[in-house]
């Protein structure tokens, strides 16, 4: 039986199933191609690198802004921020922090940082590092995605328009719904073909959130006291990493509660990790269930007859 000879409604059903299979195949093929069997090695102690992985340059800027405010180098006034009087771009070492301090030499809206090319440039090294680790798509991955999409387009349009031509040739013009289905399937295929991260990158986000799950528990004990002004280390590094791994929204309830409100409404995408660029994984529900470790001695001693 030739499926192209089926009555209209039956062919539409067949086409929907066919398009579903093609799109599923597209997703499967991308996952298979991009999920590396070996584990990437990146610097898991670099909060900006992790923030970029999770949400791109906007997340880096959010984390950097919060940490600069905490370190007293940026001063906030409502939805505006400004470099502190005694601060200088030379007082920090990390390029994105220097760029932010330059950008806000004078008071300005927080949302401006998301449109600044200089700040984007300062974030580029993170993108390159993650591309080298195959966590962000490089040219090779992009080409693979493009090839798979072209094949999918060929299949979806080939089958669909063959039927359209047959129908028109037979003098039937009621092909509007089929054309809508063809276009819809092409749009879906294109939309799912180019996620920001590779599959390995998505897996890495979850891994990092699992490894750093312990940071979430003492959140209420993190206070926004002064950290070292010149470096990201010291007292400020835990909240900074918490924001990098889970989003600045994870600081809610701590001395950094200002952080979440700082970016609310500044960008369509919330600063919380659950909403950033759609590739952040299930960060909000992640805890360290398996990482909480401890030997059988636990934290409460060995129960009176020894230990490990």
């Amino acid at each position, binding site marked *: 039986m030739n499926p192209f000879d089926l009555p209209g409604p039956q062919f539409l059903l067949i086409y929907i199933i066919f398009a579903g299979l093609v799109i599923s195949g597209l997703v499967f093929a991308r996952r298979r191609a991009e999920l590396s069997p070996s584990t990437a090695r990146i610097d898991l102690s670099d909060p900006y690198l992790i923030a970029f992985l999770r949400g791109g340059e906007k997340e880096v800027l959010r984390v950097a802004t919060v940490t600069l405010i905490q370190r007293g180098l940026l001063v906030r006034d409502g939805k505006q921020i400004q470099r502190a009087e005694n601060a200088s771009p030379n007082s920090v070492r990390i390029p994105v922090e220097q760029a932010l301090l330059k950008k806000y030499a004078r008071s300005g809206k927080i949302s401006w940082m998301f449109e600044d090319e200089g700040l984007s440039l300062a974030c580029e090294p993170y993108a390159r590092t993650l591309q080298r680790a195959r966590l962000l798509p490089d040219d090779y991955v992009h080409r693979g995605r493009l090839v798979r999409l072209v094949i999918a387009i060929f299949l979806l349009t080939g089958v669909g328009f063959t039927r359209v031509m047959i129908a028109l040739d037979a003098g039937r013009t009621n092909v509007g719904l089929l054309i809508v289905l063809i276009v819809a399937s092409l749009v879906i295929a294109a939309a799912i073909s180019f996620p920001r991260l590779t599959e390995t990158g998505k897996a890495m986000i979850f*891994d990092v959130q699992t*490894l750093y799950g312990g940071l979430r528990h003492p959140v209420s004990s993190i206070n926004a006291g002064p950290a070292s002004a010149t470096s990201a280390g010291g007292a400020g590094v835990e909240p900074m990493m918490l924001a990098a791994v889970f989003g600045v929204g994870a600081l809610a309830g701590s001395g950094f509660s200002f952080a979440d409100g700082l970016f609310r409404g500044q960008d369509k995408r919330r600063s919380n990790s659950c909403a950033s660029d759609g590739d952040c994984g299930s960060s909000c529900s992640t805890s360290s269930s398996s990482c*909480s470790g*401890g*030997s059988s*001695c636990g934290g409460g001693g060995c129960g009176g007859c020894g*230990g*490990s």
Partner: protein
Amino acid sequence: MRDRFGLGWRAKLALGILSNLDRIDIVEVIADDYFRAPHRERRALRTLGAQTPVTLHGVSLGMASSVLVETKRLDEMARLCDEVSPVSWSEHLAFVRGGGIEIGHLAAPPRSAATVDGAIANLRRARKIVGVAPQVENVATLIDPPGSDRDEATWVSEIILHSDSDLLLDLHNLHANSINFNFDPVDYITRIPPERIGAIHLAGGKWIGRPDARRLLDDHLHDVPDPVYQLLEKVGACATRPLTVILERDGNFPPIEWLLEQLDRARRAVARGRTRRSAVAA
């Protein structure tokens, strides 16, 4: 090969560990936390293993028992080892269950021929199923196991000499037992075959009991005491193979820098021992 120094992986130490991998050679992970963990959490452990060498440490197999360790538990360890590819794995010379009852604790078994035989049989099965023999750790105890007919050094030596397992020598356990049962820990060390000492655990503990009957409890919540470093130097002087030295801390966490300083002190202690050994050999 060289001696390696590392920390026990605890969620609250994650940032400190991952930020100081230039000062940490290896991380020890409690294997049992991952036996039934979802695949994605086990994969996170593999990601940790990509950053630094990992060794797995079991706490629930109960190797030193006349009862065979369940195949299911060894299968779980084997699966985890396959996924994580640790540099080694270890378990305790303890029993943790009996008659279907879980003790929930690492209990020192009677030191007898029966438990030597049982431990050897379990270690053979473990090697067969996991593919690699575990290192076995001496445990701390606050009571002298009833039914014992030999001392601990003899018992441990018999087990490692008749199995393929090397010793993970927990020096704080040894220190605590030596105080609680009044024996010489240095004599203990010299009676262990030096070529079979593969790893070291360091930890701290606290005094418990009445002032006239104080005992030392190994709780992993305190700093490593001075006598343990002295024992470590002694082990460094006699052990013939590279050592993996792990500092265990389960709670009451100090700043990471403080733990790293203890690790550096352990490096210096082993180095002093190695120097002594070289001098004697020369």
